[in-house]
């Protein structure tokens, strides 16, 4: 019935529905722009469900992620959410870490343990991160009150606030408003890169929480800065998979159209959702990803992909609703003469 929407993919050498490519790109664009991740873990099962040749899925996805992250990063930069200095250091630190992680996997492969160890580590990471972020969200008020009491007590006693770790050289990141030890920054990004190389993933969903919880970035800046890093890894991935001959540029183009539109929506929605709201939605998203990996591990056919797709579409709907609500509220406040506070 919708055959008129089919386009010929010259590299994959088959016809595929362009609307499906645009729709997948749109969903990943919304999520990527909002959470600061590439979204490859959604694209691959989505393409698989609709019969896209898997040989070209990863390369084509990375090609579109490169283009999409340009759109999203440019917009986040306008909003003041990109700490380029931090982003460039994250790339440098991650590079070494990826190599380390991959070497460990190669060693595990020689022992015949790589498959299960990587899969279970992935699940532990996804569920661990997800449930920690849920705990963080639901206890934020209690911890804020305890912190306020502690600060008041310290101020009253005249004691200087105790720094947790200030091994020089200290680095200042004006965009994020943080001053932190060089060793902490490079150590964190080495570790996130190590996990990326070990698990064979892009790492956006690891870097974003690391930027928030360990580096101390405000959530929106963590999102924008992470996308800046994804831009570079996407560009490199696009090129290297192109050399391998596994990028279908026509499919990537259609996905990019959808992703660019979706990214505009996702990035703009960040303006209307508080940092903890973003963290809550991110936690739900990666728990669903963990469930999908669990279903795949126990070989429950198709359901692993359905969980990811349903989760992605549901999250897109929530983000779009938040955008519309926030936009309407902002418009009403402007009309009434009050500046919006989100």
């Amino acid at each position, binding site marked *: 019935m919708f055959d008129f929407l089919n386009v010929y993919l010259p*590299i994959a050498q088959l016809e595929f529905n362009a609307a499906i490519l645009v729709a997948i790109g749109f969903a990943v664009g919304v999520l990527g722009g909002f959470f600061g991740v590439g979204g490859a873990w959604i694209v691959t099962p989505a393409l698989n469900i609709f019969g896209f040749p898997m040989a070209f899925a990863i390369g084509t996805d990375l090609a579109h992620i490169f*283009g999409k992250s340009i*759109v999203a990063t*440019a917009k986040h930069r306008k909003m003041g959410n990109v700490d380029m200095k931090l982003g*460039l250091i994250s*790339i440098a630190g991650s*590079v070494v870490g990826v190599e380390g992680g991959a070497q460990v996997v190669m060693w595990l492969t020689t022992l015949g343990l790589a498959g299960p160890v990587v899969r279970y580590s992935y699940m532990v990471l996804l569920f661990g991160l997800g449930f920690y972020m849920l705990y963080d969200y639901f206890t934020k008020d209690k911890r804020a009150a305890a912190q306020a009491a502690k600060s008041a007590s310290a101020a009253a006693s005249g004691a200087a606030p105790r720094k947790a770790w200030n091994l020089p050289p200290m680095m200042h990141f004006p965009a994020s408003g943080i001053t932190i030890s060089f060793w902490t920054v490079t150590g964190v990004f080495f570790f996130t890169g190590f996990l990326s*190389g070990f698990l064979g993933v892009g790492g956006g969903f690891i870097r974003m929480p690391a930027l928030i919880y360990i580096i101390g970035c405000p959530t929106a800046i963590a999102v924008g800065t992470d996308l800046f890093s994804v831009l570079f890894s996407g560009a490199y991935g696009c090129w290297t998979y192109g*050399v391998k001959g596994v990028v279908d540029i026509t499919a990537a183009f259609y996905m*990019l159209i959808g992703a660019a539109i979706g990214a505009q929506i996702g990035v703009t929605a960040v303006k209307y959702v508080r940092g903890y709201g973003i963290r809550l939605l991110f936690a739900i998203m990666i728990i669903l990803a963990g469930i999908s990996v669990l279903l795949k591990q126990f070989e429950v056919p198709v359901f692993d992909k359905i969980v990811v797709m349903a989760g992605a579409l549901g999250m897109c709907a929530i983000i779009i609703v938040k955008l519309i609500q926030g936009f309407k509220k902002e418009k009403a406040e402007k009309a009434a003469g009050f500046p919006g506070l989100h």
Partner: protein
Amino acid sequence: MKRIWVVIFNFCLLIFPSLVWGAAGEKVPDFAARKVSLEGLGGLNYFFAHWYNDSKMVFAIIVTLIMGLVGVAIAAVTDVILKAVGMEVTKMEHHE
């Protein structure tokens, strides 16, 4: 000027993990020697397929450049459209 060299240097650093990137993930087939049929193709499809067959390196450069340029173009156009409908974004305050 210094910033652009830092950016280029960091971009070059990404080349080093090329030997092992994704070693733990799904295996990607290497179609370096693969060729596609040019029969019935025209326009852009022929252009991409021709370079795909002729030189994967040039094909990869073309793909990367096009994805980058299309991303920039779409960013610019959607900015104009969103500004016209009153959804332009400016620097935001960060509230956790």
